[in-house]
């Protein structure tokens, strides 16, 4: 589906737009959640991303893939949200699972530490890290999303990993 009919999209074809929403909705949600670290905010940003994409569809030239374009919109919305929001570090209670108590405590500890480490990253580093590490996005595409040079994207990713390594390097991975 990556090969979408740009002309049809620009004309506002509702069926095509529905396909795009269904195809990328969840993927975008996961990405945005990793950046904003809040489920409600992530859902809201995803909805708003699609709204803006539809409203501004005529501005989509098809130079990048539609997904990259959507990520760019979502990234901008995330920036706005994070700038407005006071920094908070808390564990999302929805992350708990049905492990045994010992494993659960360990999982929660790891989850908490990851959230803390990710939240301490500057937003650009956080975004690059998410796109690269979890989405396996090439640096070239990341540079399109962030409007920066490819080398900068790479450096940001390396900084992010190094910082998180300092924060998380002392954790021992729980037993499966």
């Amino acid at each position: 589906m990556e090969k979408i009919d740009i002309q049809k999209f620009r004309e506002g074809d509702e069926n095509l737009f529905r396909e795009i929403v269904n195809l990328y909705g969840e993927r975008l949600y996961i990405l945005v959640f990793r950046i904003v670290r809040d489920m409600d905010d992530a859902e809201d940003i995803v909805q708003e991303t699609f709204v803006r994409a539809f409203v501004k569809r005529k501005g989509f030239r098809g130079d990048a893939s539609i997904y990259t374009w959507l990520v760019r919109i979502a990234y901008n919305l995330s920036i706005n949200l994070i700038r407005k929001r006071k920094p908070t570090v808390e564990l999302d209670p929805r992350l708990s699972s049905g492990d045994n108590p010992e494993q659960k405590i360990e999982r929660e500890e790891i989850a908490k530490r990851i959230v803390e480490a990710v939240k301490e990253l500057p937003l650009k580093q956080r975004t690059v890290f998410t796109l690269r590490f979890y989405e396996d996005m090439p640096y070239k595409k990341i540079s399109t999303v962030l409007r920066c040079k490819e080398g900068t994207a790479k450096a940001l990713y390396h900084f992010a990993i190094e910082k998180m390594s300092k924060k998380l390097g002392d954790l021992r991975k729980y037993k499966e």
Partner: protein
Amino acid sequence: MNCKIFSNRLMDFVEGLLPHSEEVEMKEHIKYCKACRLKFEKIEKTLMILKEDRVPQLSEAKKQALFPMVMERIEKRIIIRRKRKWVYGLSFGFTLLLVFVISVIGIQNQKRADLYTIFFNPERFVYENDTLVNNYLLESIIEDDTLITIVKAAVNEEWVENSEMAVLIDELSEDEINQLVEELRNIDF
């Protein structure tokens, strides 16, 4: 390979982006350099831990509701935009009308605003010439040459504001007013 080169290439090594020959050199280096090996292991462990970062899943209901919710937002946005267009259009039209009315009133008042600067003081001066001022007793002060703001006249030795003098001025033509102002200017106190 020394430790500095190892550090510089470490992230590319971790990401598997190095050419084969350099990758072999890196692997060789960590065999005998404990500090670099620990550094590499720490990053590897961090990446393993980060893979455990879980995201709360969207429920099936939410996934299904996404498109309708997006469309609902879009429709609301379109309605708001239409309303805004109307409001902006009406505001613009009203502003234009207001500017036009104010300009017309301003132009009409311009002539008079330049003229009402006349004081009458019957106790100090008697103006006897047979002019447009006729039988009024006058002392005139013309402020800023032409800016006339206050009209007072004395009728039967009492100060009266907005007197017949104002009415008189209202009724005069521009030439007549100019003549009056000139006469007032030339009064010898």
